């Protein structure tokens, strides 16, 4: 129904191997598409190159082959798609207030100053941190800092939002609450999300579709659609069934690869 937001076509990435002239292949022939307004996850074991894939899509690492295209939302400039990024750790500028951290990305993306106040208020409220504008990040808990990072990413009204295991550094209870709140935020902000995780349960709970990645060689071996209605409950039996099937499939592929 929607138009395409991200196209990755036969992407290859190599890194120089330490102590040898040869390069080893991190990503081999990766192709994927993300539809506008969809929540798409990439699931794979640690070290399979998921983060590298996100970095290439974000444009901070170059590809050795293939192409990444980001299609801006209707009415936006094609030349400079806006990319929001939520990292594993919050990566906030601790010497700036919560508000100034958001101003930093707004200034970087040339959002007119007149809109800053409204963007800050709206997005802090969305992540449940209304009133924390003047506080410093180090006075906030880890979960709250990650909420600021999410507000920062949403504040630029991104064409695509990349999330790299954003809840993996949080304790299980906080992470569960954050996932739940993220669903709620998405109902309102409706961004296009490419989400990387090694946690299948998390991916099944959050995603519209999932790309499954294996390592050695790093490639995508399956795309699954999770067509369960929203809002979802984490203890829903249907979600659990889906997860079980996918885990089984995962292990069969990983074992077949040795």
């Amino acid at each position: 129904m929607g138009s395409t937001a991200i196209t990755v076509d036969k992407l290859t990435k190599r890194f120089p191997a330490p102590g040898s002239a040869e390069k080893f292949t991190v990503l081999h022939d990766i192709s994927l598409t993300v539809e506008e307004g969809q929540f798409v996850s990439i699931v794979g074991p640690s070290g399979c190159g998921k983060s590298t894939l996100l970095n290439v899509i974000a444009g901070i690492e170059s590809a050795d082959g293939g192409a990444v295209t980001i299609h801006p939302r209707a009415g936006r400039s094609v030349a400079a798609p806006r990319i929001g990024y939520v990292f594993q750790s919050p990566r906030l500028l601790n010497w700036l207030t919560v508000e100034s951290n958001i101003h930093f990305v707004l200034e970087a993306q040339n959002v007119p100053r007149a809109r800053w106040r409204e963007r800050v208020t709206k997005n802090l409220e969305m992540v449940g941190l209304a009133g924390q504008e003047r506080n410093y990040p180090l006075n906030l808990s880890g979960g709250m800092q990650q909420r600021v990072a999410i507000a920062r990413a949403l504040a630029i009204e991104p064409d695509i939002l990349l999330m790299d295991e954003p809840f993996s550094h949080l304790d299980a209870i906080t992470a569960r609450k954050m996932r739940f709140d993220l669903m709620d935020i998405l109902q309102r902000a409706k961004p296009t999300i490419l989400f990387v995780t090694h946690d299948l349960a998390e991916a099944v709970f959050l995603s519209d579709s999932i790309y499954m990645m294996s390592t050695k060689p790093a490639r995508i071996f399956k795309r699954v659609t999770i067509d369960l209605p929203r809002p979802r409950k984490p203890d829903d039996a249907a979600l659990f069934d889906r997860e079980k099937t996918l885990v089984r499939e995962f292990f069969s592929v990983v074992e077949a690869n040795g």
Partner: protein
Amino acid sequence: MAKTGRRTFWASLSRALPALLTFAACIAGWQIISLFYLPIFFPGPAVLVERMVAVYGDPASYVVIGETLARIFEGFAASMVIGTALGLLMGLRRSIEIFFDSWIMVLLTFPAVCWAFLTVLWFGLSQAAAIVTIVLIVFPFVAMNIWAGTKAIEKDLVEMGRVYKAGRRLMLRNVLIPQLLPYIFSSLRIALSLSWKIALVAEAFGASSGVGQKLVNWFQETRVDMMLAWGVSFMVIMVLIDLVVFRAWARRAFAWRPRLAA
């Protein structure tokens, strides 16, 4: 309210008592030893205070001090600007780092006295000689320190800035400089203390005015008491600058850090 105020006063006094006692003992010991020598060779604290009153009671002294202070601050400011710029460039550009790596060491190890002589030969007995001497000696320390600071910059934050397409100035202002601030503050203090020491040496060698030249005059008359009277005051000025300007500034700049102690 007044009662608790008095109690904290006595409490802080009793805490400071050992320090005060040792200080008093030192002054007393100094005074006693000085009684065995001529005041112009080894002046006691009483004589020193007397001489300082003589020096600082004379308005002409402030012209001399003003000249030296002007040289110190010009040399200090130039060293900070050049040193910080070079340190940053070395930290952020690999090619510049490779080029200056050994030159910084050469400059750091070059004897200060050589610079003092050389600048007199090159610039004559002038204002410039003292300032250039300060800059040549101080800026490598600053550059070295800032360069070390760039090694401690968190790559993760730089990457964050790049993902959001922050421009160079925005990155410098909000990502790089704040992380270098501890190094900038330590550079300020090193540079100021070095600048004032070198200013006096440079003046002693090559200036026809300033505190350094006064020291030389009194040295030629073997008047230790007068040399100390001139020197001590400068120590006071520099410590005051450090306490009032740098520390207060640092306290404000690091307000974002949660306090360690409750």
